[in-house]
């Protein structure tokens, strides 16, 4: 390494820029290796380059630090870093002599944000699950025909547009109450909680949809925030969670009453199809008409039968009387002496009375013999009294 040389102008020591930078570099080189935490930005990697460059950013203040790491070292780590991830970088301070820029010469990089956040998320999930916030028996049924649908959305035109289009096409006879809120980054969780409270304070809102398109793990984190998850679970009306993509499961998905894979799917869940509803109504009305008609028919038939019975009543009475009369006649007939005469008997009368014994007559008396057909006038010749 070239020495740090200066020239003398009188008693003044003067360094060249290169010497100065090199001198600072030597001082920096005596500093111990350190770990630095920051967010990855401006990651530049090229197969043709010996080094990989990135800028570490302090998320709180925005302060930046250039990081250089040997490409081979970087590749061996297999980090597959993306912008915005929080990492720990181990290295020493160095100066880029040509530019006089301070940097960090990295020996290794570790991804930290995700790991810690995942652990925290898992703990929160277990805690809330233990409280029963995700229990299936907490899930409420969605209203079939909501008076108004509350929609919480970020400034995310796509998610909002899909939801509005789906609901508008299926069931325009409703009202959408849209609350745009900051859904990612600092303050998002608080904004989401406030938005849920405002949406559910509207008495006509019968269901709330959380509509948030896809995003990175960190972007979706506010939807796993404890306050947000509790607000979803405590909501006055059922909540449909359409947050992130299919593979994402923010905790609000677990606390929501229904989870929708996309905003479009959510739209189809929260409102019925107008045409289905109209045809169902039509069917109900037909049943109404039919029910009345069959009721009237039944009554008319009953009336008809009653009329018939009424008209038939006198004839029945007459017939019954006649039958009774016939029976009396028959009995009378069997008692009549005429019937006896028919069997060959005769009635003998004398002096206006009926003869029951031979000694009631004397020889020479005139007697009248009545037969079944006709009668004889006769004279008694002899009496044989018993």
């Amino acid at each position, binding site marked *: 390494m070239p020495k740090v040389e200066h020239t003398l102008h009188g008693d003044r020591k003067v360094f060249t820029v290169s010497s100065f930078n090199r001198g600072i570099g030597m001082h920096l080189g005596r500093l111990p290796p350190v770990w630095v935490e920051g967010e990855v930005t401006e990651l530049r990697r090229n197969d043709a380059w010996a080094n990989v460059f990135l800028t570490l950013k302090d998320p709180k203040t925005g302060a930046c630090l250039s990081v250089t790491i040997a490409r081979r070292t970087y590749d061996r780590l297999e980090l597959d870093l993306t912008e915005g991830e929080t990492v720990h970088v181990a290295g020493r301070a160095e100066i880029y002599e040509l530019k006089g820029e301070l940097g960090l010469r990295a020996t290794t990089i570790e991804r930290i944000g995700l790991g810690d956040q995942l652990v925290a998320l898992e703990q929160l999930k277990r805690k809330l699950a233990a409280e029963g916030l995700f229990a299936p028996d907490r899930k409420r049924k969605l209203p079939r*025909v909501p008076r108004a649908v509350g929609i919480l959305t970020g400034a995310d035109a796509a998610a909002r547009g899909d939801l509005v289009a789906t609901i508008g096409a299926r069931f325009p006879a409703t009202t959408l109450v849209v*609350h745009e809120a900051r859904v990612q980054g600092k303050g998002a969780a608080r904004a989401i909680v*406030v938005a849920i409270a405002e949406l559910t304070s509207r008495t006509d809102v019968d269901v709330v949809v959380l509509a948030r398109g896809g995003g990175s793990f960190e972007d979706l984190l506010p939807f796993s925030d404890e306050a947000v998850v509790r607000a979803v679970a405590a909501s006055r009306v059922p909540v449909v969670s359409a947050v992130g993509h299919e593979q994402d499961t923010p905790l609000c998905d677990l606390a929501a009453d229904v989870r929708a894979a996309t905003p479009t799917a959510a739209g189809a869940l929260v409102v019925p199809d*107008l045409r289905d509803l109209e045809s169902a109504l039509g069917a109900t*009305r037909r049943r109404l008409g039919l029910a009345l008609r069959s009721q009237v028919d039944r009554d008319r038939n009953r009336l008809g039968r009653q009329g018939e019975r009424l008209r038939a009543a006198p004839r029945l009475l007459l017939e019954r009387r006649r039958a009774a009369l016939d029976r009396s006649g028959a009995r009378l007939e069997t008692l009549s002496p005429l019937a006896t005469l028919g069997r060959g008997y005769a009635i003998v009368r004398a002096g206006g009375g009926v003869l029951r014994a031979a000694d009631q007559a004397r020889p020479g008396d005139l007697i009248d013999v009545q037969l079944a057909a006709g009668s004889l006038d006769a004279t008694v010749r002899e009496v044989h009294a018993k």
Partner: protein
Amino acid sequence: MSEQRSFEELQRELEEIVTRLERGDVPVDDAIALFCQGETLYKECVARLQGAELQIEELVPREPGM
């Protein structure tokens, strides 16, 4: 009267009326009254569905710095 009632309530009442009529044990005068009531409910339901345009209301966030 029905202005405050939800579509679902109206529809449920209509369904109840139809079910009662279908049981067929309602005196005919009551049946006719029920039918008229059902017709009114049906018309109210249809009126709510037809010609409605999607209303969109924006709630303005109250938090500053949004």
